């Protein structure tokens, strides 16, 4: 564990090397949150859409924003560039697991994000009220903890596609768009047509926004909450080990760039 802990700490320290960049990232993120709050406030007015009135939607948007922001400053490019620029060769001369190392780095990079998200989320909640019960908060935190490895797996898997495609930008955009739509980040899944919302609720993307939001809002309790959490954990494990399988294939495809 020691090497991974060490990498985690190094990565956390590195994020502080880019304090200004992190600050700008937070401000940008805050702007996104404020704009989506105002758009939905205008849309909903005093009414409700698909069961969401303004107080609920507000809470939903804060959760969606927090889930969307976490890991965002890490940038998919960091992992992709390791492959595209051939640094992966140096990484592979070290006696550590590649995927584990990348996860440790990714998690360490959240060091400046988590406080920022906490501050922004508390601010919104403090100014607008609507604090859920302790049971909801507990389930939400469990679920939110799964968001980190889930998002890591998506990033890691898409970065790995560089082994085959050598083009990352398009893939990264496609990934972001798919996650945005199918996680409920764009609009709550229940607002999608049934033929889209039912499969979306079973896919791993739902674990990024829809699941933590449902637990936070108390839309799912008891057995349903357990089922949602179970599905989320299932996807974390499936993607983690699926990535390992894919990695083996990727190594065969590896062409180290630049000699």
């Amino acid at each position: 564990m020691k090497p991974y802990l060490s990498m985690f700490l190094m990565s956390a320290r590195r994020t502080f090397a880019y304090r200004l960049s992190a600050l700008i990232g937070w401000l940008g993120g805050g702007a996104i949150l404020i704009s989506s709050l105002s758009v939905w406030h205008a849309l909903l007015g005093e009414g409700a859409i698909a069961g969401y009135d303004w107080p609920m939607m507000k809470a939903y948007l804060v959760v969606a924003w927090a889930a969307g922001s976490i890991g965002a400053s890490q940038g998919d490019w960091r992992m992709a560039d390791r492959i595209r620029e051939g640094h992966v060769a140096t990484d592979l001369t070290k006696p550590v697991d590649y995927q584990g190392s990348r996860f440790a780095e990714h998690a360490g990079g959240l060091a400046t994000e988590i406080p920022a998200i906490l501050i922004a989320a508390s601010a919104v909640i403090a100014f607008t009220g609507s604090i859920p019960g302790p049971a909801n908060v507990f389930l939400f935190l469990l679920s939110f903890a799964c968001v980190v490895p889930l998002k890591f797996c998506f990033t890691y898997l898409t970065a790995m596609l560089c082994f085959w495609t050598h083009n990352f930008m398009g893939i990264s955009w496609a990934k972001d768009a798919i996650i945005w739509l199918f996680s409920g980040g764009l609009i709550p899944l229940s607002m999608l047509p049934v033929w889209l919302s039912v499969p979306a609720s079973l896919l791993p993307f739902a674990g990024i926004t829809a699941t933590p939001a449902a637990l936070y809002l108390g839309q799912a309790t008891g057995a349903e909450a357990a089922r949602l959490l179970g599905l989320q954990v299932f996807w974390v494990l499936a993607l983690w080990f699926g990535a390992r399988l894919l990695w083996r294939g990727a190594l065969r495809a590896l062409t180290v760039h630049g000699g």
Partner: protein
Amino acid sequence: MGLVKAQSLTKVFRRPQKGPGLRGSVKHLFQRRFKDVPAVNGIDVSIEAGEAVAYVGPNGAGKSTTIKLLCGILVPTSGSVEVAGVTPHVDRIANARNIGVLFGQRSQLWWDLPVRESLGLLRDMYDLPKGFYQQRIERLDEVLGIGELMPVLARKLSLGQRMRADLAAALLHQPRIVYLDEPTIGLDIAVKDKVRKFLRELRADGTTLMLTTHDLGDIEDVCERIIIIDEGRKIFDGPLAQMKDSFARTRRMHLHITDGTPMDVIAKHLSTADVSGEGSEVTIAFDRFAHTAGQIIAAVLQVAEVGEFHLDEPAIEDVVRKVYAGELLV
């Protein structure tokens, strides 16, 4: 029994043939066209413990690919590799503990953090005891002067400093086998000397060394054996001295003739040597096993008066240059 062994080692890359831009990439996902390019083609190598081997060839000859196969980074298309009893691509992590690797064109240092942090991470990766780590740092400071670099951010290092820090990083865990891919690329002469001296000490300590380089000074200073590859095939493998004897036999004597004796008179007199030049400046190329320099000068003095002269010793450079240019079939 070699410590590093490769038999009929082959790596074929499938190079995708695709159109430009995102469109080309997406199209490529559906319509896959590839071309097979053999980077390493049936190479047999066996390196004994403690040997220092230069691995030489023109750009794109397959040097780096071979190193990557030996590191377990790449999976061979066919053939076998064994390094200290481990098959690198099967048990990459076990192999990684035995080897130290430097890719001169890349850094393994963490760009935004002081050098000390990167070395500390390596200490944890290789699980080095505290006392051993201290001792290694002191040793590496002696030969590479990394002490002064420890608190510096990696991105603030000059190229020479970066290379010293990277060498320290590659050798921190005192590996038995060291692969160095272009360890002196881009370095100034003073730093180059330092690095070469360090490599000689490493060899004296019994470390097995494999060096790819375009710098022939590295080879002559550090290695006793040379392997030349071209287009993925091994074309020479033997002691450096033997290579020089076989292929670098020609010495060149440059003379300044003071009495105006024409060149063809000298050429006629020295029928077994090759005489060229212009006016009073004459160059005589001769086989160093057939004649001594004394014999040549004595012969010239019979027909002409000589002012100044100097002698070029055969250099490994000439041989390698000829091999690269395809003039010499070894």
